[in-house]
């Protein structure tokens, strides 16, 4: 027995348990982000951090300011597709026109139009090994008006 009136092995176990629980409590205090739980089960500051990021996409209106002729054509073909869906995020290009957008290839078309059973049947799809293999898409299709030939 000791001054706590506990057998030695129980005293050791009590102290060890207190040490483990205390370590967890301290670790939890130190490792939990300060704003965790401010609004819900996540880090509250994450909202401000996300909101403060500079947008990468400029939006179709920004494209239309300089490329209204192309936008006009696109409304008749790929009317539901935003410019940046194919031309990539372009806020840098909007700020500085010398920075060009990505160059488009056949894969840009096939990303949506290669045959895939998961796509709706009404969606135009081609099997590349059968559909004019070796030729490029833009030889027969205008990208902004895909129903028209060049």
């Amino acid at each position, binding site marked *: 027995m000791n001054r706590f009136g506990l*057998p*030695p*092995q*129980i*005293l*050791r*176990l009590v102290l*060890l348990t207190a040490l*483990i629980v205390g370590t967890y409590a301290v*670790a*939890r205090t130190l*490792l*939990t982000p300060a704003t*965790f*739980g401010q609004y819900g*089960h996540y880090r509250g500051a994450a909202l401000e951090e996300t909101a403060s990021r500079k947008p990468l996409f400029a939006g179709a209106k920004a494209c239309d300011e300089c490329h209204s002729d192309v936008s006009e054509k696109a409304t008749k073909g790929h009317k539901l597709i935003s410019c940046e869906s194919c031309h990539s995020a372009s806020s840098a290009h909007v700020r500085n026109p010398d920075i060009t957008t990505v160059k488009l290839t056949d894969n840009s078309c096939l990303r949506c139009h290669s*045959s*895939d*059973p*998961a796509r709706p*049947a009404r969606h135009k799809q081609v*099997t590349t090994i059968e559909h004019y293999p070796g030729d490029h898409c833009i030889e027969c299709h205008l990208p902004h008006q895909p129903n028209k030939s060049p």
Partner: protein
Amino acid sequence: MEADLNVLQWSAEVQAALPHVEGYAYPNETHVLWSVLIVIYPYITGLVAGAFIMASLVRVFNVRALAPVYRLALLTALAFLICAPLPLLLHIGHPERCLQVMMTPHLSSPMAMFGFVYAWYMMAVLLLELWLDYRHDFVVWGRTEPGLKGAFYRMLTLGANDISPKALDLDERMSVAVTIIGIPSAFLLHGYVGFIFGSIKANPWWGNVLMPVIFIFSAIVSGIALCVFIYTELSWFRRKDTCDACLDAMGKFLFFALLVDFSVEALDWLHRLYSADESIHVLKQLAAGKLFYTMLIGQLCLGTLIPLGLLGATQLFGAQIPNFVRRRIYYFSALLIMAGVLLMRWNVVIGGQLFSKSLRGFTTFKLELAGQEGWLVGLGLLVLPFLILTLLVRLFLPNEKDQPANTPTIAQLPQLAREGNGADDPAHERPSVAL
């Protein structure tokens, strides 16, 4: 006619694009995401729970015949428990993130709860029971072993060096209490694994209230089989005869546990077949097709029916079967059962991802050799607990040859403690328990 041609062309295109898919599968079902690591995870936790429950037969249910494997079963449970989270940590690919789950746990997260159940089971049950059981030996070894090894044992005593009969009796009573708490804890640890699968309502192969029960019984079966295997192997390595009474007792418990496990799983299948909901056709196809070898041949025939027959024979004709034959029957049955339970985990985890939720198609799973979720990693994870157990056995289960004569078994210890054998005089201290 044109529509038929379109369907034919469409099917040909599907076959060309997804050769591993049969019939119709949704796009997110073509790849099996829970791979061999998720198979091994419930297998290892099941072995832990089973080994612990077998050890509890000695402590709580006073099955004296199993005393020679009591400590071995606890050490086995510890070796496998240390490895239990590894498959998950490897699977998520960011093992350091497990800390976040523990620091800001959410009650709705099964993974967070697993962390606490695991910590509880490891520290409040298994390590505590081992410490109480070994405290006397730690004190003795701390005094007798030289150098670092002695210092290591002294450290493990945590400074509690009182080994008077009164103190040992208190250890014994606390140990029984911990084991009693440990049984529901072991059920919780492994029942939780079955719970994870059983609560996935979208998957008819998994979403089943019997799933935690099936997992627990298969865990008990695999844990006892593992103890039979390790006890036999350890005796062989130490050139010692196995205790036939102990093996007979383990064989008896193994047989009855396997019988209950088989009955519960058979009940599950009978219920599925009789209720015949919309998923039964695809499940029957799955069992007879993709899982034919792993389920019907491996799990059912090799892992269940043959061991049931062999172990049943030892129960019916035990007296007529020579001892050396019975030993081999137990060993061989244990190997088959361990393989069968591993295949059961495979069938649940992989099988549940092989059929489409459309109930109209299947995908294929091919296990890679190397890589994060390959054969080699899986094999390493299954071998690692045995390596850890080897170390634990060397440290904490000394060979009987190194022990004084007339070494008592664990079953004799409480009585010895109460009789006052091993008072503070080191010459009469309670000798260490031999295997």
